[in-house]
C-alpha cells in the first residue's frame, strides 16, 4: 500500500472519526465510515489523500444523515436566548448533557459554516477547506469567524436555557 496513505492514516484517522462523529453522532458508525473511507482511498489512491478522504467522508455522512432524518427530527433545536451566561465552565455539566448541547449548537449553524468549522477542527488548511466547501479562499476566515461566534452563542444560549435536558432529550 502506498506509504503516503499509511502516513495520512496515522495522522488523520482520529480527526476523520471525530469529523464524522460530529455529523452522524454515533461513535461506532463514525469509525465504520472512517475505515470505509480509508479502504476506498486504498483502492482509488487519490493524489491528495487527506482532502479526498474528507470529501468522501462528508458525502458518506450526508447519505447517512438522510437515512437518519427521522431520528434527527427528535432533536429539538435550542432557541437562542439573549442573556447568555458567559464563562460557564463546561466541566460542570456531565458529558452527556454537554454533548447534546454541542450537537444542538452545531445544528444551528448554516451547513456551510458548520462544514468549515468541522473541517478546520479536523486539521484541514484554509486551502483545503476552500476546495471542499466551494468557498473562496479569502472567505474562509470570515466564515470561520462567523461559525465560531454562532457556535459559542448557541451553546451559551443552551446553557442559559436552564437544565438543558428538557430541550433536547424529548422528541
Amino acid at each position, binding site marked *: 500500500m502506498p506509504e503516503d496513505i499509511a502516513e495520512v492514516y496515522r495522522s488523520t484517522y482520529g480527526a476523520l472519526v471525530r469529523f464524522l462523529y460530529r455529523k452522524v453522532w454515533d*461513535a461506532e458508525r463514525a469509525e465504520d465510515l472512517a475505515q470505509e473511507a480509508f479502504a476506498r482511498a*486504498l483502492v482509488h489512491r487519490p493524489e491528495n489523500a487527506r482532502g479526498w478522504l474528507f470529501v468522501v467522508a462528508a458525502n458518506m455522512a450526508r447519505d447517512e444523515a438522510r437515512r437518519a432524518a427521522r431520528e434527527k427530527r427528535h432533536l429539538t433545536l435550542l432557541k437562542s436566548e439573549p442573556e447568555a451566561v458567559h464563562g460557564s465552565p463546561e466541566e460542570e455539566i456531565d458529558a452527556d448533557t454537554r454533548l447534546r448541547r*454541542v450537537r444542538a449548537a452545531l445544528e444551528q449553524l448554516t451547513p456551510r459554516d458548520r462544514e468549515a468549522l*468541522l473541517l478546520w477542527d479536523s486539521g484541514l488548511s484554509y486551502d483545503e477547506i476552500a476546495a471542499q466547501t466551494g468557498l473562496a479562499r479569502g472567505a*474562509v476566515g*470570515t466564515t*470561520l469567524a462567523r461559525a*465560531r461566534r454562532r457556535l459559542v452563542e448557541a451553546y451559551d444560549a443552551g446553557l442559559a436555557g436552564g437544565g438543558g435536558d428538557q430541550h433536547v432529550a424529548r422528541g
Partner: protein
Amino acid sequence: MTQDSREGGGTSMSHVDEGTLHAYLDGELSPPERTALEIHLAQCASCGARLAEERSLIERASAVLGGARPSERPAPPLSELASPRRRGRRILGARLPFAWAATVVLALGIGYYLHAPESRVPPAQEPQAVATNVPAADKLEARDLHRRRDVRSVRSREEVSASHDSVSAQRLTTGTVALQTTRAQLREAAPMRAAAPSAPPARSALHVDEAIAQADSGLASLRGRLVSSQWIVISRGSARTLLGADPVGIPGLAARDIRRSPTDAATIVVEQQLDSTTVIQLFQRAATVEGADLGYPQRRFNAQAEGAPAERLARYVGRLRVEIAGPLTPDSLNRLLEQVQPLP
C-alpha cells in the same frame, strides 16, 4: 478577507475585519499579509483588543467542539482495511445467511440433477456449472452487498458470526468435494452402491451426507436416462416458432445457446453465461401451455421443484412462463429473473 487592509489606502491601514483576524490567528495569512497586519496591530489599540477577543472566541469555540468527541479508540491496522477479510467481517449479517443458502443450493443441485434429468442440459455441461458454485455465488454476493450497505451488524454480532463464517466456508468446500466425488461416479456410470461414496470427506457436514445419499439413490434411475435427456440445440428462429414469441434472456449477457426439451417441444431453455464459469438457464414456454394439459408434470419443468415452491423461481414475461436455474442463491436467481427481457 483582507479587503480592508488592501483598500485602506492613504498612509495607514483601516481597521481589520474579523475574518482577517481569524486567518491571522489560524496561521493562514500569507507572510506579506501577516506583516502588514502586525504593523497595523502595533499602532491600533482597538484592533489589538479585538485580536484578543477573537483569540478567546477561537479558544472557546474549540473548547465547545471538544465537548463532542467520540471516545478515542486505536485505529485498526491499515492492512486490515485493505484485506478482503474486512469486507466479509463487516457484512456478516448478510454473509452468513448466504453461506447457508449456498450450501442448501448445493444439496438441492445434486438432487435436482439426479431426479429431473429430462429438464436439464447434457451432463457434459452440468458439472461445470455446479462446480463453480462457490466462487460465482461469492462474486454475485459481493455485488449484492454493495447494495446492502445499510445492513450492518453490531460489533458483538460480527464477532459471533466470524466463527460461523469459517465453519460455513469449510462446509462449502466440503460440499464441493462431495460433489466432485458424485460427478466422478456419474461420469463412469458406476453401478449403484448401497453404501455412501467411497471416500467421504472426514468433516462432511450432515446436509452434504444427505445429499450424497440422495445422489446414490438417484443413480439407478439416472442410468439409461442420460442419453434420452439430451436437449437439442436449436436456432433463434426455431425457438421463436416453438414459443410463439421471442425467447427471453438477461440483457447484457451473451446467449450461449438455445435448446429445446427432448420430451416437450414447447419448452426451450436459453443458456447464458454470467461469467466465464457460471451458466444460467432460463426455461421458458408459452404461458398458455399448461404442463398438466400436456400430461407432463410441472415439477419436471421447474428446476427446484423437488425442494422448493415452484413459483419462487418463475415469472411471466409477456406471453412466456420463465423459470430460472443456475448455481446461485435463490435470492440472486430471483434478481436475475426480474431482469429478463425478450432477447434482442
